[in-house]
């Protein structure tokens, strides 16, 4: 097949994949919501979960996005250095978003800043957003696609603490977000925490943390322990589904970290709403694809 045809075939797959994760939540999220709903005891919290599950069923039956805010598309790309279409990826993902906007259909969510007009195509200057990671000696590509909605993006916060504030300060920072903006961000939330040097490094890590499948833990023992402490602590606040109070608050807490400057602790929080629309797909060098986030689906 010519390169042009190959590129077009990858655009088609990605466009269909975007439409898929706009209507169906990944397996791990579906399972976690089911589990959390069973722990709720108040009639109001139970009925909210029932409405949520009915919604997911209807979205599949009617073949349409499960939430009206299909977000700004963000892609976390882990590309092998020898993947043959590296230079085409930006074009492929942009065109896939344009196609999915019509086919899914997606809401028009790209407003050019300063000129303040909606492009109507879901792409604009710098959108969709693509974050790159190059993997040596590999020839495949892995893509995490995410719909960054307004509601779940609003609580996003980053700051640089002094080391004196310690991880106690990190704890305070994370929990303050939960009871202020987090409350309105469609709990039960997935909470991503980034710990690094400065605001942008911490912020990117906090978003990357949201791409990790539920039930995975940070490889550092202390960080993993802190994930559990934060999860239990935030759950004890009892935000409940939609913040109307209940027995749980979060689907999980994921921490991603790097080394830091000795004088700073950069910390950031990103939240994912219950309708956590994330999809993971891998293409080999011949563009055969495997979807790992959603089982039993075909594009």
């Amino acid at each position, binding site marked *: 097949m010519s390169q042009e045809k190959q590129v077009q075939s990858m655009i088609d797959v990605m466009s269909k994949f975007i439409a898929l994760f706009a209507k169906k939540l990944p397996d791990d999220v579906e399972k976690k919501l089911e589990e959390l709903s069973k722990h709720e005891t108040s009639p*109001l919290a139970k*009925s*909210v979960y029932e*409405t*949520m599950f009915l*919604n997911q069923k*209807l*979205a599949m039956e*009617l073949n*349409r*996005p*499960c*939430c*009206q*805010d*299909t977000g700004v598309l963000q892609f976390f790309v882990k590309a092998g250095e020898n993947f043959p279409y590296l230079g085409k990826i930006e074009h492929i993902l942009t065109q896939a978003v344009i196609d999915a906007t019509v086919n899914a*259909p997606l*809401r*028009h*969510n790209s*407003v050019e800043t300063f000129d303040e*007009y*909606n492009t*109507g195509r879901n792409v604009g200057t710098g959108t969709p957003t693509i974050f790159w990671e190059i993997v040596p000696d590999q020839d495949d590509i892995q893509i995490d696609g995410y719909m960054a909605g*307004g*509601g779940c993006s*609003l609580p996003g916060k980053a700051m640089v603490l002094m*080391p004196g504030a*310690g*991880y*106690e300060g*990190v*704890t*305070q920072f994370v*929990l*303050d977000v*939960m*009871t202020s903006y987090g*409350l*309105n*961000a*469609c709990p039960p939330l997935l909470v991503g925490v980034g710990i690094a040097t400065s605001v942008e490094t911490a912020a990117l890590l906090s978003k990357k943390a949201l791409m990790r499948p539920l039930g995975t833990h940070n490889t550092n023992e*202390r960080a993993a322990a*802190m994930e559990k*402490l*934060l999860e239990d*602590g*935030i759950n*004890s*606040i*009892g*935000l409940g*589904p*939609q*913040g*109307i*109070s209940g027995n749980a608050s979060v689907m999980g807490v994921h921490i991603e970290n790097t080394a830091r400057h000795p004088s700073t602790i950069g910390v950031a929080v990103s939240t994912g*709403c*219950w*309708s956590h629309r994330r999809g993971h797909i891998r293409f080999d060098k011949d563009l055969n694809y495997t979807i790992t986030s959603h089982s039993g689906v075909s594009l």
Partner: protein
Amino acid sequence: MSKKVLTTPIKVEDLKDIKIGDVIYLTGHIVTCRDVAHRRLIEYGRSLPVDIAGGAIFHAGPIVRKIEGTKDKYEMISIGPTTSMRMEKFEKEFIKQTGVKLIVGKGGMGQGTMDACKEEKALHCVFPAGCAVVAATQVEEIERQEWMDLGMPETLWVCRVKEFGPLIVSIDTHGDNLFEKNKIVFNQKKDAAITEISKHVSFIK
């Protein structure tokens, strides 16, 4: 318990027995109205192109699709609430000027909206967020649309709905606010959680 259904135009006496935490439904009309529409009315003094006295607004930006073969008819695909707090800055004055009786959105609203709901007799309710297909199937028809220059999410979509809900009452006409009440409890529990976690994370020694 029978379903409590409000019908537009809503009268003041329809609202007096409704309290925070109640679940109600709406039949009649609801108009999507969010950030820029609020700004146009309150900051720029442009009157809304839809009469919503006794009516309902929905803090929502839907996905709609043009119905093929029509000039300007649209189908509701997916519609769910957006964060109501973004409209807090304008809502008190908005309720006073428009006579709107029901505001549907997501999450809580603040003191201004509480004051206006009490003085003017109006409710703020939450539609379970993210449940946008459920809501879309309750829209019988988009009767018309205004201010389309604002783009798909911000256009005023005039929807005829039947038993639209569940709507969880978050601010009632008596000055009560579900989210503010919850927040007091949440903050107490938060402080306890911080104290507990802090005992275990003294990694810098």
